């Protein structure tokens, strides 16, 4: 029983909470063609036995799949996500009411098992907060994140993927923005064997403003994939996507897909997406596919840019010719490449941590 595609057009896709509405993934699908399925441990074809747990610490209310907020921002677009939404044992609800000065942190630590997870962030109208999701440890994890950004609320969601080398992580991260809401997503993916994130944004009312920032660093053997969809479904909304990735070593692979669709009703839309990739060695690979579909001519602006380049030896020469040793010069160039993202995060603690993490990636 396959449900009809609820979203039509260029980005047509099935959306359903029913896992059986989705056929098994074969790898020939457009949205799976970059992903090495054999490394998904059976999540793609239903052979995976997901019966373990993951340890989540922080301040939240525990919820199950029957909670009324589950599925309000996110409707699964593939079978693993639908299974996770149906079968997760313990989910976390974070309710944001009022303006919070301190970030809310959830530490999501894998203990080597296969697990489902579900986080709902319910930001009430006029609320303001930074929510940090820290993914670490090892295991196989399919975890959804739903963010309900109430009218005029201002939410920053930081998702750090700092997994151990053997982790597999699939995660749909859906935000639904109310009228005049602001949403900033910061995705930082450094660790894991295979990480595949699907951040999506949709708008429930006019005036919404979404900024999606992403940074990934793939070492040898890592597959780090980020597939974004911004769906302009209301008038006068704005979106900005800026993702940067670096890759170095054998079979280091980053994938960025940036889909933006401007629906007929979304007049006055202002959108721009940018992806830059830096290949630090010959064996590393980056795929980048921006897509823009516009169903109305009455927009404020729409554009995208994508570029993938190799490390520029002339930059190295210039810095070295000023006495700076090669390894330090290399670090400067890569940090400089990411600087545009890091400076826009706006959370000093996280920026410091990120600097340290990048340094250790570069000296590895």
């Amino acid at each position, binding site marked *: 029983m396959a449900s009809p595609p609820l979203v039509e057009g260029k980005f047509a896709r099935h959306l359903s909470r029913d896992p059986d509405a989705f056929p098994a993934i074969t790898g020939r699908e457009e949205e799976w063609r970059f992903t090495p399925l054999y490394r998904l441990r059976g999540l793609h074809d239903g052979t995976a036995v997901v019966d373990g747990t993951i340890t989540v610490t922080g301040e939240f209310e525990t919820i199950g799949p029957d909670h009324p907020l589950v599925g309000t921002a996110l409707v699964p677009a593939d079978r693993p996500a639908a299974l996770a939404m149906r079968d997760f044992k313990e989910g976390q609800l974070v309710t944001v009411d009022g303006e919070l000065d301190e970030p809310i942190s959830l530490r999501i630590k894998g203990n080597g098992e296969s697990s489902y997870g579900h986080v709902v962030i319910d930001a009430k109208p006029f609320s303001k907060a930074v929510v940090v999701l820290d993914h670490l440890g090892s295991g196989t994890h399919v975890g959804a994140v739903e963010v309900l950004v109430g009218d005029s609320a201002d939410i920053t969601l930081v998702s750090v993927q700092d997994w151990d080398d053997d982790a597999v992580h699939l995660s749909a991260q859906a935000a639904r923005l109310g009228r005049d809401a602001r949403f900033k997503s910061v995705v930082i993916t450094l660790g894991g064997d295979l990480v595949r994130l699907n951040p999506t944004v949709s708008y429930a009312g006019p005036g919404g403003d979404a900024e999606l920032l992403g940074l990934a660093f793939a070492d040898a053997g890592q597959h780090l994939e980020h597939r974004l969809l911004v769906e302009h479904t209301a008038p006068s909304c704005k979106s900005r996507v800026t993702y940067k990735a670096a890759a170095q070593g054998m079979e280091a692979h980053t994938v960025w897909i940036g889909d933006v669709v401007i629906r007929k009703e979304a007049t006055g839309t202002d959108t721009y997406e940018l992806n830059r990739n830096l290949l630090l060695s010959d064996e590393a690979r980056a795929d980048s596919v921006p897509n823009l579909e516009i169903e109305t001519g009455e927009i404020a602006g729409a554009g995208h840019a994508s570029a993938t380049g190799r490390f520029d030896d002339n930059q190295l*020469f210039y810095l070295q*010719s000023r*006495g*700076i*040793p*090669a390894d330090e010069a290399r670090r400067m160039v890569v940090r400089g490449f990411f600087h545009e993202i890091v400076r826009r995060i706006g959370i000093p603690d996280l920026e410091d941590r990120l600097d340290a993490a990048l340094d250790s990636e570069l000296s590895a």
Partner: protein
Amino acid sequence: MTTLEIHDLSVSVEDKAILTGVNLTIRSGETHAIMGPNGSGKSTLAYSLAGHPKYTVTGGTVTLDGQDVLSMSVDERARAGMFLAMQYPVEVPGVTVSNFLRTAATAVRGEAPALRHWVKEQKAAMAALDMDPAFASRNVNEGFSGGEKKRHEILQLELLKPKIAILDETDSGLDVDALRVVSEGVNRVRATGETGTLLITHYTRILRYIQPDFVHVFVGGKIVEEGGKELADELEANGYARFTPAAV
């Protein structure tokens, strides 16, 4: 007292011989001008001395106070006291001028300059080159005008105080005012008497501001004639015709 000794230096690029036996000795306090037509190999000499990987040394020696320069990495050469002001400085996105300058000074001096002194030093050096303080927070060479790039090169020269400074076509792309400001910067470094300067240029214009002690005519990958400042005057009057084959 420092001596840079270039002896019978031959260099090729992708198996094509560009330098064919260069001999030159530069001592602290001296200013040498290398003049030559386009394509004579002047810039190759500059980049070879700095150690750019594109250039392959096929013969000869270069020593700095007896130390073998050619066996040093690019950054080791700089720390040993060599400096190349480039004709086309490279953009480094996301790296600010102030971060770059302090990192370079730390590397060359062997220790991080005390922040308080450093800020003053950098400010004064920038003011001397008529540079807006806001310049320090821009990214290295990104969106710089031709004049800004050259001022930035000379700013580094003044802050890093090398033993041997090689200025590759520093006069190109400069208007009269910028040329004067940049030349004054070079002259301040020369006045210390602690730096030997190698000025590579196509035109004699910059030599009105920076008086060379020696002029070398560079043609076909080597020095074909040497003299004093009067040689530059002759080149200004007659061009390079006397030194190039009639067929050219």
